[in-house]
Structure formats: C-alpha cells, structure tokens
C-alpha cells in the first residue's frame, strides 16, 4: 500500500527543484536530456503503478507508449484532428487497449504475465513495423506540438516544452498517488499480496487488474503522445520490447513500488547513458556494470539505498517485509 513519508516528500521536492532549475537554465542539449528524462519518468510511473503496486510486471508498456504516439500522430497529422482532440483520443485508445490486455492477461502471473504482455506488445510492434500506412520502419514525421499560445506559451520552444512536460509529470504523479490511495488502489494492493483471498472476499479480481492496467496504459500513452510531440517524428522502434525492458530496468533500478524511486531511476539512467556515450562507444558495458553493482548492494534499487542511508529502522523493516512478500509472490506464481 502506498505511503507518503518524510523521506519520499523530501526526495520528491529535491527532484522537482532540480528539474525546474535545469528547465530554466540548461542549454539546448540539457533541455533535450531533461525532456527525455521527464517523458521516461511518466512512462516508468505508469509501469510502477502496474508492476510495483499490482504485481503486473509488463513488457508492453513501451508498445503502449508507441500506440499513444502513433495514435496521436495519425489523428493529428493524417486525420487532421486538432492536437488536443487527437491527444484525448490517443489517451482513450491506449487506455482501452491496455484495459483489454490487462483483462486478457489477468489470469496469468509472474513470468507468464510478463510474456503475455510481451506477446501483445510484439504484435503491435510487428503490425506497425510492417504497415505501410504508418510509414513502416521509416517512421512518420511532421507531428505538431500542442498549441498553448492561448495562454501565451509556445511549445515549439524547447524550454517551454520541457516545462510543459514537467507540469504534466507533476500532474501524473499526483494522479498516481490518488489512484493508489483510492478504493481501487487499495484493492490492488490486496490483489498483489493475496489474490486468492481477495477473490474469496468477493472481489472481481480481473476487473481490478484490468482497470488499473488500463489507467497505467493511459499514462504510458500520455508519455507516448509527449514523446511524439517532443521528437516530432515517430518510428516503430518506440514499440520495441527493448523500450519496455529499459523502462522496467529503470523502475527496478530506481526502486520498484515506491513511485518516487522510478523518478530517481529515470534521471539516473538517462544522465548516465548520455555521460557515458560521450566517453566511450562501449557505454553499455559500463551501464551494465553499474546495474549489477546497484543490485549487489542489496537495496531495493537506488531509492532503497537512499532509504537505508536515511536510516529509519521502521522504514527498512517495512521495505524488507514488502520486498520479501513480493519475491514470494512472483516466485510462487512462476
């Protein structure tokens, strides 16, 4: 169950301050990176809701993001809908797709769930990759950003766009907390801890899973819409399973089921990648070693490590109990 505590609030505030500072002062490339982080952060929040709080470890969130991006691109660039309408429609579509995937996969657990979601993601990928209407593997260009000139904001400016993404991320974070604190979110925690008992109590488990997966997918779709607007060009690579895999790595690296952790993870991952790729073509090697080192430090990701340093005994115990429980669950399902 999601709990906000002093540590989480502090980290959150620090992150927000850092992002804001960066958005206001960074150069072009800094803004590029910031925007990349912010969009990835939205995606990993979506994934954390499903995986960290619902045990639904998904390998199709990249594809869902892609669906959002393509839906927005097609609807705005080809069907001529105005960006806000196209955006709303894209979100609805992604949410709907995710809901259906969640409903279909609800009976699977652990690695089976992962693979089932992978299957849907790959189907979407193959379809987009091979469909000439979507530009095939050459992708689609000419995507417009949202027009906020009404309120005096020009999103075509990198800085405004970064600030806009930051605002959206803030809203998504708030919404995620609300979802997790709602009746649905509580039931989700119950389902993750003991699905059999929830069912015996009278809960329609698959509905809860599908609803949450739908919401999570909608958020992933939002990340996709933003990504499409950011790059103003999309290609099927967006839907590839490696994007989902990377998102999953970021969530785990940051701290699964902490909501704040994945944000830290997104920032750390993107920064690391950029710093390293400037230094060596073999940056994968270094990233790999760092991933391994983080895990070997035995914390629940970076955030778990921060938590440990913070030193709250109760916190640590809680984290451990939850982690142990999670482990058991995913394993016993496998």
């Amino acid at each position, binding site marked *: 169950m999601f709990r906000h505590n002093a540590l989480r609030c502090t980290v959150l505030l620090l992150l927000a301050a850092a992002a804001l500072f960066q958005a206001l002062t960074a*150069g*072009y*490339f800094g803004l*590029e*990176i910031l925007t*990349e982080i912010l969009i990835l952060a939205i995606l990993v929040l979506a994934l954390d809701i499903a995986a960290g709080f619902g045990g639904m470890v998904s390998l199709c969130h990249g594809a869902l993001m892609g669906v959002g991006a393509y839906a927005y691109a097609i609807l705005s660039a080809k069907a001529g809908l105005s960006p806000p309408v196209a955006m709303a429609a894209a979100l609805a579509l992604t949410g709907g797709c995710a809901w259906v995937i969640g409903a279909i996969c609800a009976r699977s657990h652990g690695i089976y769930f992962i693979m089932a979601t992978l299957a849907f993601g790959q189907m979407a990928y*193959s379809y987009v*990759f*091979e469909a000439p209407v979507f*530009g*095939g*593997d*050459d*992708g*689609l*260009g*000419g995507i417009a950003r949202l027009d906020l000139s009404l309120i005096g904001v020009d999103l075509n400016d990198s800085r405004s766009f970064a600030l806009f993404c930051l605002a959206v991320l803030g809203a998504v974070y708030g919404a995620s907390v609300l979802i997790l604190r709602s009746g649905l979110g509580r039931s989700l925690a119950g389902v993750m801890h003991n699905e059999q008992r929830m069912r015996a109590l009278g809960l329609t488990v698959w509905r809860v899973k599908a609803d949450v997966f739908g919401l999570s997918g909608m958020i992933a779709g939002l990340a996709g819409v933003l*990504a499409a607007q*950011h*790059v*103003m*060009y*999309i*290609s099927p*690579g*967006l839907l590839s399973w490696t994007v989902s895999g990377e998102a999953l790595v970021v969530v785990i690296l940051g701290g699964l089921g902490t909501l704040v952790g994945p944000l830290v993870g997104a920032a750390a991952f993107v920064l690391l990648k950029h710093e390293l*790729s400037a230094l060596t*073509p*073999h*940056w*994968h090697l270094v990233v790999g070693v760092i991933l391994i080192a983080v895990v070997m430090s035995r914390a629940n990701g970076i955030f778990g490590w921060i938590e440990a340093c913070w030193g709250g005994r109760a916190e640590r115990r809680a984290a451990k109990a939850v982690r142990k429980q999670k482990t058991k669950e995913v394993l016993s399902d496998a």
Partner: protein
Amino acid sequence: AAEENIKVGLLLPFSGVYAALGNDIEAGFSVALEQFGSEAGTGFDIVREDTEVKPPVALGKAKKLILQDKVDVMAGVVSSGVLGAVRDMVHGAGVPLIVANAGNDEATGTSCSPYITRMSFSNGQVNRPMGQWMYDQGIRKVYTLAPDYAAGRQMIGGFAGTFTAAGGEIVGQDFTPFQKTQDFGPYLAQAKASGADAVYVFYAGGEAISFVKQYDSFGLKADLPLYGSGFLTSPLYVNAEGPAAEGVITALHYVPTLDNAANAAFVAAFEAKTGRLPSEFAVHGYDAARALVEAAKAGARDRASLADALRQVSFDGPRGKLSIDSATNNIVQPVYVYETVAGEGGLTQKVLAELPAEADPANGCEMAPVSN
C-alpha cells in the same frame, strides 16, 4: 586558425546492430580527409555522435550538433529511420547533411531537401539495372525474397519493375520478418517449388550470411542460380559466407576490385589504415568527405554556401564518375554487376558488367534552390 575550420558533425551508429557500418564509414571518411584534406583550403573539426540506430536518440544528437556545437555541416546516417527522424530538423535549421548510407527512396523523393545531399545510393537505384540485365541473360522467371521492411520492399520493387517491364515474370515473392528470421529453410523450399529460373534477393548483414549459407546447404545454387542486390555478398560479410557465396551474381555501386586509379589509391590507403578491404560503406564515407573537400575547394565555408556547393560536386572517385542530380540531390553513379569468385586470398569480386549511371526519377521531389 581554428575559427576558420569547417565544423563537421558525424552522425553514425557506433553501437547497436549497425556499429560495423558506422565504423567503416568513419574510417572511409578519415581516409579521404587525410588524402584530400590539404586541398580544401581550410581545416575540418570533427564531432562524432553515436546514433545507436535509434531515431529519437539520433534526433537528440542532431539537435546537439546543430544547436549546441553549431556545426557547419553534418555527414553520416546509416538507417533510413534515423534519416527520417532528423530530416525536418536538418531542413528547418538549414544545415547541410551528406548522407553516407541511408538509401530510402523518399529521402531524395517526396521528402527531399536542398540541404540533404546523398553520396551513397538509393534503394531503387542499385537494383533497377538488374531487371534488364538478367532478362538479357535469358532469365525469364524469378522468385524474390527480402526482409519485410521499407528498404527490402524498395530494393525488390526496383528490380521487379524493370524485370517485368523487360518481359520477365515474378513467379513468387516472400518478405521475411525483418531481423526475426534466422532460418530461411521454409522460404527456400517455397522458392525451389516455384519453378523459377533464378532467385533474386536483398539481404544484408547477419541475415545475408545466414541466407547465403543456407541457400547453399540446401543445394539450390546449381539448379536455381542466386542473384541479388550486391549487399548480399558485400566484402564486409563475404568471408563469413565462405564458399557458399561462390558464383552468386549481384549488382552494386561499388566493389573493391574496380579497376581504376582512384579506387587503387583508395583501396591502398584504406587497407593501410584498417588492414581490411574497403566495403561499399567505406566508400560512402570516403566520398562524403571527398564531396565536402570539393565543396570547400569551391570556396564554401558556412551552412548555406556548403549546402549549395555540395549539390554541385562532381568528381571521379573509386566508383567511377559521380555527380549529384540537381533535381533530387541524389547521387548519379554507375552500377556494377559482379560475381563472387574464389581468389588467392579468399573470395573476391569479378566485375561482369558496368551498367551506365542513371538518375533516379524525381519521385515527387520538389526543391527550392538554396539562396546564394
């Protein structure tokens, strides 16, 4: 002095599936700068960025090169997806880009730009001449195979168009899932059963190696000769293909065995630098740098003047006489039909025919000239 140097952004994959291509292009590029750089009348500062073959990453890197590093010109781009991603940015910012590989027809067609000059090839260009040529060899029925993605379809389309126009018949066509097909057995059996006189394919990289070896292992080469786009037996992969590649006849805009002085110099310089024979990718890099030098020689220094000068370059290179088609900014170059044969130091390319250079159709390209 450093201020007068032309700042060049190299946008290439140094990691990911196309890393080998990126490295070859870069090597070719630096060989050319060493060889001709002194003629330019100015120096070149190189900034390299790794695209990872991911369009969003590439776009980010392009933005960095353009906005932050303020490069005067960019060169590189291996995959068509990456080219699609950076096209609007490059066009909008007015930074000349010398394409050193990506071959999608649209880049010099519907989405052409006066700032984008292609020194490599286009998918249709290298396959089109083979239709007539194969018909002239007496081949009437062909089965085609290619990976299922835009380049695969364009390559096969280029060939099929001219082959059927010449009077030939495509008796069957398969597009195999791109980068997911490792076992071509099922498709080969189909081809064999189709009653074709020959098979025409496009595969590249790892897929090319698997394909050629499997084609041979099923014993198809004897009854059903294998033709294709020259990437199939590129010098980069042909040694891994081994004897299975012997006798395969393909067409490409460059092979290292071309007999001309420029090529001899290039091959020697490239071998000295890398210890390998240059591939068609290396020549893209080489000629891209050469074009840059030619443009600088003509006095171009800033983005606009470079863009303008680049579309007018023309020189005799390793591939023969090259020029840029002013209607599309695509390269115009001869295409060579070659057979892979056993030589002293392994497999080598025996050129069977030189098919004359032909400009691509405009393909919907409408271009405003760069203002001078």
